Each structure stands twice: as structure tokens, then as C-alpha cells.
């Protein structure tokens, strides 16, 4: 038998492994809705992923130096909230503050970090915080009102980042 010449296979060098990327939108500024994007972001960054969160509309309050310290949650129109009251009572003065207190107690009792602690954890893991430029303009928020280290960006800049993400989520 005549041995066939072995066909030369062109080998392409393998590209270096690419880190996974998570792109999140945080659009809500209530205490209960501030947790999910920060939990997902700190988890993904712990897995070694690159993470960016785009804070827009009321979600921008999470990056606001003063407002992030006092995010609230309402029992009004929230049937799953910590205080189960009819909407009419939820509209009474003090109802929002009571629901916020209960939520904070739940979190404390479960040894969950609070929002400022989550922000610190995320920054320690190099999570990128995009602050929506339009929201800042509409709501009269200045760069100095935000915690340090935020990237002020518009929708196109965020989409450019999200286009190269493996997971994109809107909260």
C-alpha cells in the first residue's frame, strides 16, 4: 500500500479565553428594587465576570450620595410588600416609612449587607457604574451629587458595552 501524504492542516492559534460579561440596567430607585441588580452584579463579578450596571431614571438614586442612604419602599400598590394592608391604608402618612423599616429589619436579621455596603462590595470587585446622562439632565443631578467613580454615559455607550455582553438584564 502506498501511504497517502498527510494533508497539512492550517492551525489557527486559539484566542485567549475571554471573560464573560454581564450588562445590567437598574431603572428603579426603591429599597426593594435596589437589591437585585447589586446582588447579581456582585455575584457575577465574584465568578470572574466583567460587570457593568447602567443606572437610569429612578435607578440613578442608587448612585446618589445622599439618596442612596435613604431609599424607601412603599406598601402602596405592592401586594407582596412586608406590610400587608389595603391600598387605602397604604396611602396614609407613615405607611411608607413603616414598610421601609420592616424591609430593613428583614435584611438585617438575615445578615444581608445594606445598599451602601453592596455598592462598596461592587466597587471593590471593579463593577462599572454607568450613570445615565439624560436622567441627570432631566432630574437636575450634577456629577458631584453622585458617588465617585461613576461613568456618565448615554444609551449608545451602554448599548455598545451591552452588545459585547453574554448576559443582559433589565431590572
Amino acid at each position: 500500500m502506498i501511504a497517502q501524504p498527510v494533508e497539512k492542516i492550517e492551525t489557527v492559534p486559539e484566542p485567549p479565553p475571554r471573560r464573560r460579561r454581564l450588562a445590567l440596567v437598574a431603572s428603579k430607585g426603591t429599597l426593594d428594587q435596589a437589591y437585585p441588580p447589586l446582588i447579581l452584579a456582585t455575584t457575577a463579578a465574584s465568578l470572574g465576570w466583567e460587570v457593568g450596571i447602567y443606572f437610569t431614571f429612578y435607578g440613578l438614586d442608587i448612585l446618589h450620595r445622599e439618596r442612596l442612604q435613604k431609599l424607601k419602599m412603599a406598601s402602596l400598590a405592592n401586594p407582596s410588600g412586608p406590610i400587608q394592608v389595603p391600598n387605602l391604608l397604604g396611602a396614609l402618612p407613615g405607611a411608607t416609612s413603616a414598610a421601609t423599616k420592616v424591609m430593613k429589619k428583614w435584611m438585617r436579621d438575615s445578615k444581608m449587607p445594606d445598599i451602601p455596603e453592596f455598592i462598596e462590595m461592587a466597587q471593590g470587585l471593579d463593577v462599572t457604574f454607568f450613570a445615565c446622562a439624560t436622567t441627570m439632565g432631566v432630574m437636575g443631578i450634577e456629577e458631584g451629587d453622585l458617588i465617585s467613580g461613576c461613568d456618565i454615559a448615554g444609551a449608545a455607550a451602554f448599548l455598545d458595552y451591552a452588545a459585547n455582553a453574554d448576559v443582559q438584564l433589565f431590572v
Partner: protein
Amino acid sequence: MTTQINVTETLDVSGVLCPLPVYKAALALKRMEPGQVLELVCTDPGSLEDIPAMARQRGDTLLKTDNRGGTQVFWIEKGTDL
């Protein structure tokens, strides 16, 4: 035959919930060298799925799991950092 696992560091994250077990385990693994073993003790029921997922995503090897009813112990060998 049982193989001996040489534990480099033990971390007990009993009593805390997601994302803290993964967050704290990843911080510990980051400090360690490839090939070293982290022994991780968890009580969060989510950890049963979360810790194997973390190892997969980070590129570590889960050597052994011990589910002691309410408490889980994981032995994780650190891979190479991305």
C-alpha cells in the same frame, strides 16, 4: 481507596445567604494559588447549586461535596485565574 485532600484554607460562611457565600468564597480563592484547596462550609440551601456553579464559572475544580443535612461542605481546588 480514598485520596487525601490537603486543605489550604477553611472558610465558614454559615448563616449568610446569597450572594455572600459565593462572594466570600471567591475573595478567598482570589488570594490563593492555583492548585491550593479551599474548604468551604455553608448553610444557605442555595449553596448546593451555587458553589458548583461558581467553581464551573471561575474554572476551579470541585473535588468533593459533603451534604450533612443543613450544612454543606465543599472542597474547591483553585484553577488558574482568567
